């Protein structure tokens, strides 16, 4: 028998199929396709199946994958259970709308799969806890799509804090985006009912999934679901899942949350939520610094110590106090953060070592965002006990820690 050298992994750079991590995808849209594009470039990974409630999305992903691999092998599913039942699939890429993120990730863990999941990773505090519990319970690898944790400019800022160059940490700033698009508190309204497409084109019931029922409108499906409370956690969760996450990671506060949350400003913006950790460190979630005078770009964050400060974002430029400038060095282009991130995922799956954006870390950073979101809705300063997992001064806020999921879904 003649066996091609590539099959044995003997060609330069080739990976034997038995050493490849086999992926499936659940709900791959525009952002998911970006992730998938990077994953398809990785020789250690192989993508074999996609599941979506939208026919056009299934076809588009299959076409993208088959074109890349030069075959017709990518299988399409409209039922997540069918994809998850495949024993040859090791891991799944989840890039649905937010409402599906936690339920699907937990289902995947229960089926023994490792997971890459886009952010925001949860719709409530309760989902965040359930997510962390499930991945610890099933001993599965989960990596949130918080790729900036693997971005060189963000890493350098963390390193400068850890080295002591910035002095004692005083305040972290997380930019939570332009409120003109996604204000902190989204709408609870519904759009007018429109004619449902045929089920084979769009399965509206499955599209809604765990979210409460509402009549169909194509705007939701086109991406307009954001800014509706039943599908979205508003600007704080949307952008905080990017930048609050960075603050928690950079300050090595991944295992806790602030204990105070004070909303400032109007829902139309500009607004802030002033938070404080038990150790006295401040966390300011603000929407007034995005692409501002420092030109650090979107998803920026800032670290202030008593000796100096740094701020960086997607432009990869690091702005700093004058005394820190000699310590700065050139960083990578922003696009490499996702490449590094997916590389870390593949290493984690092989070694079973937790990635930086683990389920527990993501759960904690999302709980910070949920607490700030709830404080903004309540319009008052809230105090929070991270160990007891409860607000200590507002019963209504405590009742907002979870959302009922539409039947039959649960976490």
């Amino acid at each position, binding site marked *: 028998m003649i066996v091609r050298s590539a099959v044995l992994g003997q060609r330069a750079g080739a990976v034997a199929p038995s050493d490849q991590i086999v992926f499936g995808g659940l709900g791959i849209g525009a952002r998911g396709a970006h992730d998938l594009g990077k994953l398809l470039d990785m020789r250690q990974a192989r993508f074999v199946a996609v599941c979506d409630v939208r026919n056009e999305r299934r076809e588009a992903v299959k076409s993208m994958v088959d074109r890349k691999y030069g075959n017709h092998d990518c299988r399409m599913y409209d039922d997540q259970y069918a994809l998850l039942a495949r024993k040859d699939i090791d891991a799944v890429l989840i890039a649905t709308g937010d409402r599906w993120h936690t339920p699907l990730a937990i289902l995947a863990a229960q089926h023994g799969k490792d997971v890459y999941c886009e952010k925001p990773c949860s719709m409530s505090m309760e989902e965040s806890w359930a997510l962390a519990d499930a991945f610890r319970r099933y001993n599965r690898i989960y990596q949130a799509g918080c790729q900036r944790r693997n971005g060189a400019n963000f890493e350098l800022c963390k390193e400068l804090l850890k080295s002591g160059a910035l002095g004692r940490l005083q305040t972290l700033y997380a930019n939570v985006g332009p409120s003109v698009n996604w204000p902190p508190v989204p709408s609870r309204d519904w759009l007018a009912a429109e004619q449902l497409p045929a089920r084979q084109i769009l399965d509206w019931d499955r599209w809604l999934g765990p979210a409460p029922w509402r009549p169909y409108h194509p705007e939701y499906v086109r991406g307009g679901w954001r800014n509706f409370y039943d599908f979205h956690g508003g600007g704080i969760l949307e952008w905080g899942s990017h930048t609050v996450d960075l603050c928690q990671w950079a300050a090595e506060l991944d295992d806790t949350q602030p204990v105070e949350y004070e909303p400032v400003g109007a829902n139309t913006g500009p607004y802030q939520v002033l938070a404080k950790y038990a150790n006295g460190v401040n966390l300011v979630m603000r929407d007034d610094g995005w692409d501002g005078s420092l030109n650090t770009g979107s998803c920026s964050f800032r670290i202030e110590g008593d000796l100096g400060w740094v701020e960086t974002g997607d432009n990869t430029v690091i702005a700093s106090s004058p005394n820190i400038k000699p310590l700065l060095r050139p960083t990578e282009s922003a696009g490499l953060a996702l490449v590094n991130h997916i590389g870390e995922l593949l290493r984690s799956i092989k070694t079973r070592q937790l990635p930086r954006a683990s389920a527990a870390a993501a759960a904690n950073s999302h709980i910070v965002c949920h607490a700030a979101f709830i404080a903004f809705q309540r319009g008052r300063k809230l105090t929070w006990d991270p160990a007891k997992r409860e607000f200590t001064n507002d*019963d*209504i806020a405590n009742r907002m820690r979870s959302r009922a999921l539409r039947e039959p*879904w649960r976490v």
Partner: protein
Amino acid sequence: MQQTTQPRPAIQAEKPKPPLPPAGFQEGGIATMDAAALIRILTDAGAREFQKAKACQRIGELGAKEAVPALAALLPHERLSSYARYGLEPIADPSADEALRSGMSRLKGNLLVGVINSIGKRRDAMAGPALARLIYGADPDVARAAAAALGSIGGLSSMKEIQIALSKTGGMTKMAVAGAGLVCAERLLAEGQREQALTLYASLSTAGIPQPARLAAMSGIIREETSIGRPR
């Protein structure tokens, strides 16, 4: 030290505005109504589906126990049942548990699954015997939900029912029962019932248990046996 620069307010690029909701689908004043006014919406035969949906959600935030009968009346409603549970789940009063248990005997299919999920979330131990029976019913989705709820409720009674069900179920239901066992074991550990938790983990580590749960149970044993804080 003095901060030398602070960013100026950003110039924000605005996205195209979405369509405006019609007047009948705007929450408006419902957002600030008190419990009595919200209950009037739920009990008003002329109120629209949208108004009732929003009233349920706001009642859940208020935690108004006087709304329980009105919320319970919506549990059989195909579109509003999940909204009714949205209202019931956060109400810290036994009447909410009673309403959900009552729903278990009245509902079928997905609506029953939803009620069972809420019971599991509230960890209502009084529902245990009824949930245990449902594991062996004809509807596999109901059976799996019942198993999951038992696991979430936890305790020795649930542990016993889960161990029995491990030997009497198969396929996806057995997978759900095993998953429930893992959750139940964690509940037992949290309550200091270590030996019982380890016994349950051992049951879940045997051949015939779906592999993800079996490996998780083994991990649970290792985690517990190697924990520094465990009693010795």
